[in-house]
């Protein structure tokens, strides 16, 4: 029986693959790597690309990942996959976008925001009415 290594591919939103393999290929930051069983402990960032898992019967499974981390221990390979394409500029843009949304919302221009506020006020009014009703009931009894 050929030597095998355990492979787990997980992302923040769920497990993608789990099983054993005779060889795992991935595109690490410094070039493609092939991981055989009993590989020494190794850790690297992954570039967007293929992760190939070679099974004992020679079949290969392909997983496309948009970047992530590769962690290797002698008996386990773990791919921590990103669920989105990450790059410094993109992250920066996302952050700016989140800030802009907050400013916009605080300026009170979005209809959605007005809706949220109206809802909150309505909830408050309903609570007040309920309290008044309760008081009345208490008085009556």
């Amino acid at each position: 029986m050929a030597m095998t290594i355990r492979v787990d591919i997980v992302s923040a939103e769920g497990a993608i693959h789990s099983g054993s393999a005779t060889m795992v290929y991935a595109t690490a930051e410094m070039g493609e790597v092939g991981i055989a069983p009993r590989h020494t402990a190794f850790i690297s960032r992954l570039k967007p690309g293929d992760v190939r898992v070679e099974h004992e019967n020679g079949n290969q499974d392909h997983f496309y990942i948009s970047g992530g981390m590769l962690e290797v221990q002698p008996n386990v390979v773990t791919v921590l996959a990103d669920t989105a394409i990450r790059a410094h500029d993109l992250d920066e843009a996302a952050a700016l976008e989140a800030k802009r949304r907050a400013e916009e919302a605080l300026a009170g221009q979005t209809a959605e925001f007005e809706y949220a506020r109206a809802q909150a006020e309505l909830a408050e009014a309903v609570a007040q009415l309920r309290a008044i009703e309760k008081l009345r009931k208490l008085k009556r009894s």
Partner: protein
Amino acid sequence: MAGAKEIRTKIASIKSTQKITKAMQMVAASKMRKAQDRMSASRPYAEKMLQVISHLAQATPEYRHSFMAEERPRKRVGYIVVSSDRGLCGGLNSNLFRRLIAEIKEQREAGVEPVFCTIGSKALGFFKRFGGEIKAQATHLGDKPHVEDLIGTVKVMLDAFEAGEVDAIYVVSNEFVNTMTQQPTIRRLVPLVAGEQNDGMPYHWDYIYEPDAKSVLDALLTRYIESLVYQAVVENGACEQSARMVAMKAASDNAGNLIGELQLVYNKARQAAITQEISEIVGGAAAV
């Protein structure tokens, strides 16, 4: 006595309300199951990451990332507040905000100023009324939140931390205890809560790093914190659905009671009307 017709229309309207609440209850029940699955699906990622991070922190003691640094004296702290987008889920959001208000009060007394990032439109609406500095927000994540929707919001906070604008970051969200119970909790994200440092490693070993330990650790830490926030969002989603299910069940039950009471009143009114009619006829016949 109210007219029989009025009562009848009232009963009909309550019945249609009951139909709606019952439907919402059932929708929430099925969504809750999915949300719970999502909650458990996101766990292995964070666990694995924590394992790697704690190992890295041990293996490279010379490099200390700012997220793992010692606590510094606090002037401002950041809160990432996770709420639902929609209402009709009982006291879920208001309990959370009550807990947060108590916390803010405590912090302010200690001379610490809070800043906020909000996730979900309920939190946004709350802070608009309550006041407070909102640095970033994300709303309308839907039933299936994605990590990429949160990256921006989390980054704003982490940047603020690295720039020294805030001295700690907390995440405020509901913890899913079981279907009936949701616990508002405040957890510290940064500086990272130190885990148990010695996992009893028999001999010292280290990874081969590509390109180097520092950049690997940086990338890992950001992702780890994002995944923690994502988990909080997913968990809050499960809480929202279960709270809604319970609230809607209570509403359906109340509607049932109300219908019963009204039915009784209606029957009495009908009986009275018939009796009156008969007595009128009898009276009329006697007069002839």
